């Protein structure tokens, strides 16, 4: 097993409150790994630690064998470890095409050129269109991103992320607040983009990740409760208790 992302003894304390306690997690390369748990289980904190938006109190994080514990979020993004957000992370006033181009522009440089015309950005158009087609937003290419319906915004976010050609995606509740139809579409999209990538996703809802994930880690009260395939963890009594005891939907 080749490990893509690994955390050892990961702990985060907020003024005496331990949000994440001594978590060991390893995500195998090329798999879809889900991090689930009831509200307040520490999923989002854990996720923010792994994406470096928070600094851990203790513990180490490594990506492809490289210690990234003290790196800045923009640095790990440049290593190919790209995150998404729970609220749809788009640039609302830019068009769909411009949204994707912002990502391509970073990967290909020239983003500091303040003396050149933005005409040169049109060279990214073809590649941007490929990513837009990939997520099924072709007809919205020139639409203002803010005007897209919710599910389409998430699709745009994924297209923008793909434009960075990341090796690993970290998705923060990609299905949160979506209707059934959108959930299916995004699930299909995640399966498609995970073909040659590693995906770690945080989800609240067990049923959503059931047939999507290769491996599932269940968190409760900041600690790991169980880990395994869906079949394994869905039978584990402590998981059932945590979910029935808290909220099951």
């Amino acid at each position, binding site marked *: 097993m080749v490990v893509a992302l690994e955390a050892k003894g990961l702990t985060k304390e907020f003024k005496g409150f331990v949000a994440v306690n001594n978590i060991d997690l390893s995500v195998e390369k090329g798999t879809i790994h889900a991090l689930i748990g009831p509200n307040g289980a520490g999923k989002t904190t854990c996720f923010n630690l792994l994406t470096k*938006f928070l600094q851990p109190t203790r513990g180490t994080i490594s990506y492809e064998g490289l210690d990234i514990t003290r790196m800045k979020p*923009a640095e790990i993004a*440049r290593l190919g470890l790209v995150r998404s957000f729970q609220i749809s992370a788009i*640039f609302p006033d830019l068009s769909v095409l411009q949204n994707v181009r912002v990502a391509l522009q*970073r990967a290909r440089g020239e983003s500091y050129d303040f003396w*050149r015309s*933005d005409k040169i950005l049109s060279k990214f158009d073809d590649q941007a269109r490929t990513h837009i087609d990939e997520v099924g937003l072709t007809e919205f290419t020139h639409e*203002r991103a803010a*005007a897209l319906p919710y599910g389409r915004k998430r699709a745009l976010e994924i297209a923008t992320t793909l434009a*960075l050609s990341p090796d690993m995606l970290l998705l923060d509740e990609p299905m949160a607040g979506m209707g059934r139809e959108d959930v299916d579409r995004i699930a299909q999209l995640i399966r498609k983009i995970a073909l040659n990538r590693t995906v770690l996703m945080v989800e609240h809802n067990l049923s959503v990740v059931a047939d999507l994930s290769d491996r599932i880690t269940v968190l409760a009260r900041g600690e790991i409760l169980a880990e395994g395939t869906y079949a394994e963890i869905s039978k584990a009594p402590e998981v059932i208790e945590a979910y029935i005891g808290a909220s099951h939907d």
Partner: protein
Amino acid sequence: MAMADNTTSTQRVEQTAGMPTLHKVIFVVLLIGLIALPFFAYPVFAMKVMCFALFAAAFNLLLGFGGLLSLGHAAYFGGASYVAAHAAKVWGLTPELSVLCGAAAAGVLGFAIGSLAIRRQGIYFAMVTLAFAQMVYFVALQAEFTGGEDGIQGVPRGELFGLFSLADNMALYFFVLIVTFGGILFLYRIVHSPFGQVMKAIRENEPRAISLGYDVNRYKLIVFTLSATMAGLAGATKSQVFQLASLTDVHWSMSGEVVLMTLLGGMGTVFGPLIGAGIIVTMQNYLATFGAWVTIIQGVIFVLGVLMFREGIIGVISRWLKKPL
């Protein structure tokens, strides 16, 4: 984040490749008007308006496009006017070199202050810029070369490139026109450049820009430095026009005035700051007979402006026309 105005499902964003025809037309009309203006109006007043228009446009780069509110832009405007005045009077440099010295000094100052200020956000950022600007004011008041309360007076107008005398108001007018108009076009280019596109993205969603791998602080520092440099260019030019650098230019009320000009005209618009500067300077000039009442009138206009058209004059017109201006 999520905009409230997604009422129409067909909001299409115009392809921003190069300058839209409408903007080209406005710039050309503006240029022709400004070339003709001194033959009909008093050139010194027109030069003052142009200097403030460039100042407001430079400030708008930071506020309107960078999303950063500085309350200390007088430091760069005034600081540059002192340096340019000193360069022309004491070092005996030609006008264009004096102006460049002023702008460069403002750029260095902007880089230094900016690199500290961008570590904070929102109101704290604004307060840090104000605090540093007050320090610059103090230096201007106390330092030897600034002339304290008197400022630097009697700055020679000199000869452009050592060849053309700018003693004549008309000659000076065209020098100022080229500098300020060129400055405004340069600011336009910054906004509509690959860098400007990233700035826009950072302003709209900073965490997302970080997650795409952008070092947002570096972009903020660059835009801060550029804004300070261009504000300095405006201040330096003004010192050549009035042959004077004074405490007024570094005073905190000057920082406030440029905020007023930008908001009144429309922040984040191309032409708003120019209109805003024109209105405020005209008011100060023609209402000067009312003395202290000018500030009250300005205050009332500002309050009305904020209450009635928050997007500023050009912002409102732009919404009517459904075209960015």
